[in-house]
């Protein structure tokens, strides 16, 4: 075959005389510089291309993965038309079948695919050293076994008819063998395969095709090397792999006759499309590849060719009737009768489903955990879109609001969605991303409501694997934190100025709740330099309708997109780990983003007088240390933290050091005032009043226990009066050598220290 092919090129044409200037340049380069890599054997001239034949040093290592030789004879076909791609053809009859070879016509040597770029791109920087370098690189990869990548498509995308076929993976995988149908898609030149059950009532308009799915049993790396030009060629190829194509075609024809009249005609008279599904096995991994061929005739005509049907005249009164009838009792003839049925190779595109989405996003495995997203506003809609495009999660979206015109400024929805429910709009948007039926559902009610939608919401929260709060509402986040569901909670929200986004993630065991995370995040805002401006600046505000609450802030979509993307990363990563996370991304005016992460700690929680008091681990550690450093004297200071008055919850986040003017003694402590006001003002300002003064702490020396002394009780009265102004009980914390006592109005609770006396 190689010799026959070579005779199509005239011999004895000098290199300088070749019509292709690229061929001249390449031969000149090899002769002048490339002698150690390739030795020119001859140059030839063909009708459409110039041919340079040379012996290539392949660089083959001793243990090559494929049977290439140390020296291989190579012919490069340079088309006379410079826009045509040079084809690199090994000129050895038994050159091995590898990956990265073009699907070649049977009458010519195979061609190796040395460059994955489109030739229109590659030619811009093309030069002889590049061409030689790419060829060497192909042989290096072949020798190292890198071409045996099961992810590589069987048929390279460079030599097909250009017809694209969209195929949902689920149709290829399904077992029921319901008929498939092909419809034109896009501008009419491309096809889409659907199941007949998806054919709309009343049928479809436009051209229809009759797909036949053929599954080739798994085999080890026997790729299709030559594109079959006819149904007969394809039948031969399949016969070698144990598949009887004529029988399958006859069977498909009979099945098509038996289908519902709704799609009988397209299945019999529509163009035949053969989809070949092959499992390629290499190194223990199996990858299924699908290739497709469009025939120049219908399944009915093929059945006539095979002798299992007779053609009949079309009935003009009944255009719905098919134009062939079954030949009773006939068996299909040999495949050679199909030699006249020409095939057009097509590009198969698998539809974007969850598996594909995960693969393109590089996520380790498809993640179909059930996620309830509460809040379908700016951040919720963007982060759900990011995560759904990465193939993540089955979504239930809860939001009672409708889209207002001003929402469109930073939402995935557009103008036409105005006044529609946000949850429903987002669920539709997410469902449209993937070719899956279960991407998202909506519940258009308030998550905290006690009437409408309550049962449905409780049911989905109970069933959920993850609950993501994107409400930007403290009340909703706390409601979700306290809900009976055992699902892990996460929360994402922007700061008011739109310069930062925060992700809070509970650990998988929920030992730290969303409430605790919120408190610890705020404590970081109050204390750490990197978050100093988190609540510091406010953006301009704009009224969007009449009411005085109807204001929104200036917050451009570009920032929403970046920060929501960061939040999506944070949520996805946190959801893949067991530990909890507090993470803040802050963006500069110029667009640079900083990320700060804080490790959540498990607080100590006590019930006192109908209140729940949480003491952060860091507070405990700090007062133990401050006490030890002051011994034998007492010491103390002010406490700050968060309150939730309706929920009767109090979270102590910080114990300040003693002011400089305090008086310390072994039997008493008088807390000074130096700097106290400034400290409390700063904490309040930095946290938008969310962290506040809560009470006092002081230490008792060794041997004194932690019961409030007479002096302490007096102070407690004072505290109760002071904090009572704000409907809060006075909080006093006494630290001793072995325990901590929390006095809360008239109530006390004592917590033993974990390791007894801590110095």
């Amino acid at each position, binding site marked *: 075959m190689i010799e026959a092919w070579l005779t199509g090129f005239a011999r004895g044409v000098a290199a300088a005389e070749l019509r292709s200037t690229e061929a001249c340049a390449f031969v000149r380069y090899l002769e002048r*510089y*490339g*002698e*150690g*890599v390739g*030795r020119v054997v001859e140059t030839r001239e063909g009708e459409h291309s110039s041919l340079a034949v040379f012996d290539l*040093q392949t*660089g*083959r*290592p*001793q*243990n*090559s*993965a494929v049977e290439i030789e*140390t020296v291989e004879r190579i012919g490069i076909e340079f088309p006379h038309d410079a826009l045509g791609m040079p084809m690199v053809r090994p000129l050895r009859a038994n050159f091995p079948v590898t990956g990265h070879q073009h699907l070649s016509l049977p009458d010519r040597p195979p061609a190796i695919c040395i460059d994955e770029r489109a030739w229109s791109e590659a030619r811009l920087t093309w*030069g002889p*050293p*590049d061409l*030689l*370098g790419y060829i*060497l690189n192909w042989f290096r990869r072949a*020798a*190292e076994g890198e071409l045996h990548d099961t992810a590589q498509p069987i048929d390279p995308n460079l030599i097909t008819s250009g017809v694209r076929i969209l195929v949902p993976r689920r149709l290829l995988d399904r077992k029921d063998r319901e008929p498939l149908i092909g419809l034109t898609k896009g501008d009419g030149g491309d096809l889409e395969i659907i199941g007949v059950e998806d054919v709309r009532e009343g049928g479809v308009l436009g051209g229809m095709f009759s797909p036949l799915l053929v599954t080739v049993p798994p085999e080890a790396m026997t790729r299709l090397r030559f594109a079959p030009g006819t149904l007969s060629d394809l039948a031969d190829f399949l016969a070698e792999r144990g598949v009887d194509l004529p029988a399958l075609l006859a069977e498909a024809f009979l099945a098509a006759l038996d289908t519902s009249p709704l799609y009988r005609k397209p299945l019999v008279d529509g163009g035949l499309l053969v989809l070949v599904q092959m499992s390629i096995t290499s190194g223990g991994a199996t990858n299924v590849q699908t290739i497709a061929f469009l025939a120049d005739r219908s399944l009915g005509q093929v059945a006539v060719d095979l002798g299992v049907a007779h053609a009949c005249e079309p009935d003009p009164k009944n255009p719905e009737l098919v134009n062939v009838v079954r030949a009773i009792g006939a068996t299909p003839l040999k495949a050679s009768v199909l030699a006249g049925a020409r095939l057009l190779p097509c590009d198969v595109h698998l539809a974007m489903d969850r598996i594909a989405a995960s693969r393109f996003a590089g996520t380790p495995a498809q993640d179909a955990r059930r996620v309830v997203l509460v809040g379908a506003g700016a951040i919720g809609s963007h982060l759900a879109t990011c995560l759904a495009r990465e193939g993540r999660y089955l979504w239930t979206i809860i939001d009672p609001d409708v889209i207002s015109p001003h929402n469109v400024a930073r939402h995935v929805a557009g103008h036409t969605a105005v006044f529609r429910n946000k949850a429903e709009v987002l669920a539709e948007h997410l469902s449209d991303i993937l070719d899956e039926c279960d991407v998202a559902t909506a519940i258009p009610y308030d998550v905290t409501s006690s009437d409408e939608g309550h049962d449905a919401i409780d049911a989905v929260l109970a069933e959920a694997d993850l609950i993501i709060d994107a409400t930007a509402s403290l009340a909703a986040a706390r409601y979700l934190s306290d809900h009976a569901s055992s699902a892990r909670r996460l929360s994402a929200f922007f700061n008011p100025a739109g310069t930062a986004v925060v992700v809070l993630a509970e650990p998988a065991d929920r030992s730290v709740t969303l409430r605790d995370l919120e408190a610890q995040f705020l404590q970081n805002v109050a204390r750490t330099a990197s978050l100093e401006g988190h609540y510091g600046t406010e953006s301009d505000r704009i009224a969007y309708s009449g009411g005085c609450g109807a204001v929104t802030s200036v917050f451009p979509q570009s920032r929403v997109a970046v920060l929501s993307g960061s939040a999506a990363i944070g949520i996805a990563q946190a959801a893949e780990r067991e530990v909890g996370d507090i993470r803040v991304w802050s963006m500069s005016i110029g667009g640079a983003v900083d990320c700060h992460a804080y490790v959540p700690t498990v607080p100590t929680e006590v019930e006192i007088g109908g209140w729940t008091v949480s003491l952060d681990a860091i507070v405990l550690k700090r007062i133990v240390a401050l006490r030890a450093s002051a011994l034998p004297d007492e010491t103390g200071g002010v406490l700050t933290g968060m309150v939730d008055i309706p929920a009767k919850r109090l979270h102590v986040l910080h114990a300040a050091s003693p002011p400089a003017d305090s008086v310390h003694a072994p039997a008493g402590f008088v807390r000074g005032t130096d700097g106290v006001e400034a400290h409390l003002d700063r904490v309040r300002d930095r946290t938008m009043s969310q962290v506040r003064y809560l009470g006092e702490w002081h230490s008792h020396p060794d041997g004194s226990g932690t019961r409030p002394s007479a002096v302490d009780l007096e102070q407690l009265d004072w505290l109760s009066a002071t904090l009572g102004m704000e409907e809060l009980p006075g909080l006093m914390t006494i630290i001793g050598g072995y325990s901590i006592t929390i006095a809360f109005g008239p109530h006390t609770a004592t917590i033993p220290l974990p390791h007894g006396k801590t110095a």
Partner: protein
Amino acid sequence: MPATITFHPLGNADCAVFQLADARLAVFDFADVRNPEDNTDRRCDLDAELRSALRRAGQGRVAVLCITHIDDDHCHGIGDTFRLDHRASYPGENRIGVDELWVPAAAILETGLKDDAALVQREAMHRLRQGRGVRIFSRPDPLRPHLLGRGINIDGKRHLFVDAGTCVPGFSLDEAEGCEFFVHSPFASKQTDGSYIDRNANSIVLQAVFREGARDSRVLLASDVTHEALGDIVGISEANNNAHRLEWDLLKLPHHCSYLSIGPERGAGDKATVPTSKTKRLFENYRADNAVIVSTSKPIPEAGTKEDRDVQPPHRQAANYHRSQGRGVSFRVTMEDPSVARPKPFAYKFTALGVAPALAAPDAAARTARSNPRAG
């Protein structure tokens, strides 16, 4: 980066340069024999090649200079290229420093040496005196009287001696350099008599092993030894459970493809030299599949030519023997590659898949990176 070996077209003369996995260079023999006055001389400018290799490897000196024996075709011109410590006042700051000089005991024992061979001897003696930067391939004791006579007491310098049957200290398969050098020859027993020295039998013969990933590639560097010496090496290694030290993936042929390194009879006409039972085992049984044989020699003569009748190697019958081996063997000749008209250095790399030719498509960037263009 996998280690590489580069061979140079030097006629019937030797120089193989290893670049180790840690980028250091080890030079095995160095015969810069090209005549710069003669522009028809096709042999390469070895000094320039070595400097270029150092530059590409980012190295200022060579880690090892091994002179396998002190014939001129193995050490010609070393005084011009390398900085020799024994002549500190000699001008030539630009010469290349040598961390370790490796020589056989014969290089110490021989007397009446001239030219470059004398330089090698003086440098080895100087370094031995200093107690560093040299390895003498011998057992120390047979050299004791000879060295004492020259004022060198070897006590305290025994670590500078490397005996056959061991690996050269300082190189490990598991460290960054990823290589080791097993010494086959010279045998210490051979130099007891200093009055007559057969240089080739007292040559350094090594098995160099290079590890890349899970693969060890073995290179046999056979200096100029004869079939008798090779037979001894095979016999001793087999007797000492060191048969695996005879295995090779790449062989530098001994003595420029001489029949005497295969067997006693050259063979007539188009015949192949017949090996002895021991050299047959070495060249055939201990050879890996798809192995490489490199003849550091002039082109293999055509039948009937004057060169074909010459007693000097290369011998066509010896080449016939090596070429006929099958199992994917490659046979390359330094003065024939890529062409007799324009021989160039060539290299192999020691990859995780074994020995592979090191190839690159020559391009302008690589060219400019290897040259020092000047403008006036």
